[in-house]
C-alpha cells in the first residue's frame, strides 16, 4: 500500500534513512517548530497565555517557547489592539525578526480594529505588516488560536523554500 505523504518513508524497507525533497524536509522542520513572538497588547494576550498554559497546550505544536526577542522568533502573534501610538513599535519589532517569518493577527482588534472605530486605533495590523492568518473573536477561544497555528503549519508546508533562496542568490550576484 502506498501512502501519500510528503516524506515517503517506510521504515521496514528503508531502515533509518529518509529520502525526501529538500523543500519538504525544510518545511517540515519549520512548521513543527514555530516559535511565536507574542506581541501581546491587550486582552487577547490573556487568551494567548491560556493557550500556552496546560489545558490548551500550545506545547503540542512545539510553540511553547514564546521568544520575546524578535531575533529568536519565527511567528509574531499580534494579540490585542494596535493603537496608532504603538504602530511604529510593532513595525520595528517585525522588521527585526529574521526570515522566514509569519504573522498571526489574533482577535478582532488586530485583524480590523475591532470594536474600536476611533481616532486612536489602527484599523487592522495589516496596514503596517503583512499578515498570514487572521483569527476572529473577541477574544478568540484558545482552540481557535490552535486552529490558526495549524492553518499556519499547512501554509508553511506549501511554501517553496529553494526558489526563494535561488532568487535571493541571483539578486546578490548582480
Amino acid at each position, binding site marked *: 500500500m502506498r501512502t501519500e505523504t510528503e516524506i515517503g518513508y517506510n521504515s521496514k524497507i528503508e531502515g533509518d534513512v529518509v529520502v525526501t525533497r529538500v523543500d519538504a524536509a525544510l518545511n517540515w522542520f519549520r512548521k513543527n517548530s514555530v516559535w511565536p513572538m507574542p506581541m501581546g497588547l491587550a486582552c487577547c494576550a490573556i487568551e494567548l497565555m491560556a493557550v500556552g498554559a496546560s489545558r490548551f497546550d500550545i506545547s503540542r505544536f512545539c510553540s511553547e517557547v514564546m521568544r520575546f526577542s524578535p531575533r529568536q522568533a519565527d511567528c509574531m502573534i499580534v494579540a490585542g489592539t494596535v493603537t*496608532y*501610538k504603538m*504602530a*511604529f513599535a510593532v513595525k520595528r519589532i517585525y522588521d527585526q525578526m529574521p526570515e522566514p517569518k509569519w504573522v498571526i493577527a489574533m482577535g478582532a482588534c488586530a485583524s480590523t*480594529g475591532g470594536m474600536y*472605530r*476611533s*481616532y*486612536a*486605533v489602527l*484599523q487592522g495590523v495589516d496596514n503596517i505588516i503583512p499578515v498570514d492568518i487572521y483569527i476572529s473573536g473577541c477574544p478568540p477561544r484558545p482552540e481557535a488560536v490552535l486552529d490558526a497555528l495549524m492553518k499556519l503549519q499547512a501554509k508553511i508546508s506549501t511554501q517553496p523554500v529553494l526558489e526563494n533562496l535561488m532568487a535571493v542568490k541571483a539578486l546578490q550576484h548582480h
Partner: protein
Amino acid sequence: MPALESAQKIKAKFGDLISEPAEFRGEITVKLADAEQITAVCEFAKGQLGFDYLVDISSLDNYGDDPRWTVVYHLRGLKSGNELRIETSVSEEKSELPSVLPIWRTANWHEREIYDMMGIRFSGHPDLRRILMWEGYPYFPLRKDFPLAGKPSELPGVAFTRVTPMEGGPFVTVPSSDEAVQREPRVRTPEGAEPGISDKWLVRK
C-alpha cells in the same frame, strides 16, 4: 450628612464664591464661581475637612455655551468616607486654571490627561505634556468638535493617524430591557435627525 456639613463649611468660609450645595442621589456638589480659587478651596477641603483623597478630575466641553469648559474635582475623605464634588468653569479664551498638584500628587496625571484630551492647561504643573496621545499630535480628541472617526495626521517616525471607516455610522445599542435582537448594535439615528446622515452624530457644527 457629613458631606453636606463639609460643603456648608466650605460655603461658610468662601462665601459668594461657592454655590449652595446641590444634592443628587446622596452626592453633594458645589460650584465654584472663580476657577482661580480652586487651590485655596481644595487646601481647605484637604487640611480642615479631611478630604485627603482626590478620586478624579474630569472635564466637560459645553460646546456652544460660554464658559466652554467645566472642570470637576471628585474628593473623598478616606477616614470618614465622605465624598464631595467641586465644579468650576473656565472660559475658552483663557483655557487655564491653577493645578492642585501641591495638594494631591495624584493630580499630576489627571491634569495631563485633561490637557491631552481637552486642551485645558493647568498653571503651576511641572510637566504638562500629553499622556495618552503622542507629543506633537495636533488635535484635542475629546472636544465636541472633534469627529469620532478621527482626523488624519502625520508625525514621521513617531506616529500617524487616519480617518476610521465608520461604515454608515456608529453602531449603538438601546438602553432598555428589550430582547437581544432589539438591543443589537446597529445604526440608529437620534430623534429629529435625518436618517442615513450619521455625520450629525459625529461632528457638531
